[in-house]
């Protein structure tokens, strides 16, 4: 159960970051957001 919640949390935060990436008008911020989502995606897929 706790693992399902963890995955949902990872997906939720990843979606928020992607949303912010698309909403931001600063390229530098977009790049930072793009890096931030990588570990969250790996965790969502339980790869590490």
């Amino acid at each position: 159960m706790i693992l399902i919640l963890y995955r949902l949390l990872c997906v939720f935060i990843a979606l928020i970051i992607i949303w912010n990436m698309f909403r931001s008008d600063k390229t530098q911020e977009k790049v930072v957001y793009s890096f931030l989502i990588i570990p969250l995606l790996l965790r969502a897929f339980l790869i590490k």
Partner: protein
Amino acid sequence: MFPKLHISLILLVVSLLLAGIFGRDFMKLHEREPVVKGPGVTRVGKLSSYLPALKDTAGDTDVYYLEGKEPGGTVFVMGGVHANESAGMLSAVILVENAVVNAGRLIVVPHANESGFSNTAPSEGVPSRFHIKTTGGTRWFRYGDRLTNPIDQWPDPEVYVHYPSGQLLSDFEVRNLDRSFPGRPNGNFTERVAYALTELVRKEKADLSIDLHEARPMNPIVNCIITHERAKELSSLASIDLDSKGVQMRLEPSPKKLRGMSHRELGDHTETLAVLMETGNPIQDKLHARADEALILTGKDDFFARAASKGLLYVPYLENGLSMEERVGRNVSSFQELVTVYSDLYPEKKVSVMHLPSYDQVREKGVGQFLLKP
């Protein structure tokens, strides 16, 4: 609504690509290295046959049975209880691929904690694999972590309460297989693996159980046989014999008040004579410089050489480091000595194992010489 949409899309694709590349690297940790059935292997089973709940989980692993034609006792060997103690796992593989049993039985589990091999310690920068040249080509082996992969058991509690003693241990020890014996069938993942191994010892009526480990060279418990009190006579005689052959393996009593370790719990909860062997592995210590494949294989490091010159190590730091050859040779020759002494002490349960290399042979010819072509 979405400024610079094209940049966002490109960056998103790049992120997905990078996640794919990194993910593939992580997934390689789950790939299991081949272990070749040697001439003495009569059948291969699964650990889950001792606890069906482990079937199709990361806790299931291969069990190799080497049965002799003559009756005798049963010796059980496990490597990879700690997946970062490579010489233990590799020594077990050497047994599977070389040993031929004439009398009695030998049961070997080279990757006791399979889950531990599917991750590496965070922040340590260690390689996930190492390679050994053999006569039939290069073989690869995983270098894992001391603990179960958190993917398989998470989260750690604030305090780990060992079952059944109730002893309190540090949080992360809950994923340490060698703090989880004797285990329980309905416990956490690591406890279930420990329970299956304990059940193997019980059901197969293992007379002698040997757990192959490695330790930090700055730890006093190294190059030694840790022995349960019922195995004291056996281990003492083996230690003396090994010493006379130039292989120093000190004797350490299994502490009664530190629970969860195989030599303590298998000895207390089963009929087996339980021992654990430790060789010195520099990559496990904090003193080393770069942690790479060479360090796993040669154990050579300038900081260790300096520490040795100041008398800070508990193992003789050889001119050429603490090579895999030295460590595997030490384990295999100690195994042979324990089995020989056991057969002398209990002739009605004699176990005769042939075709294993000696300490000197492994050191001279290299480990690869005794690994088969997959």
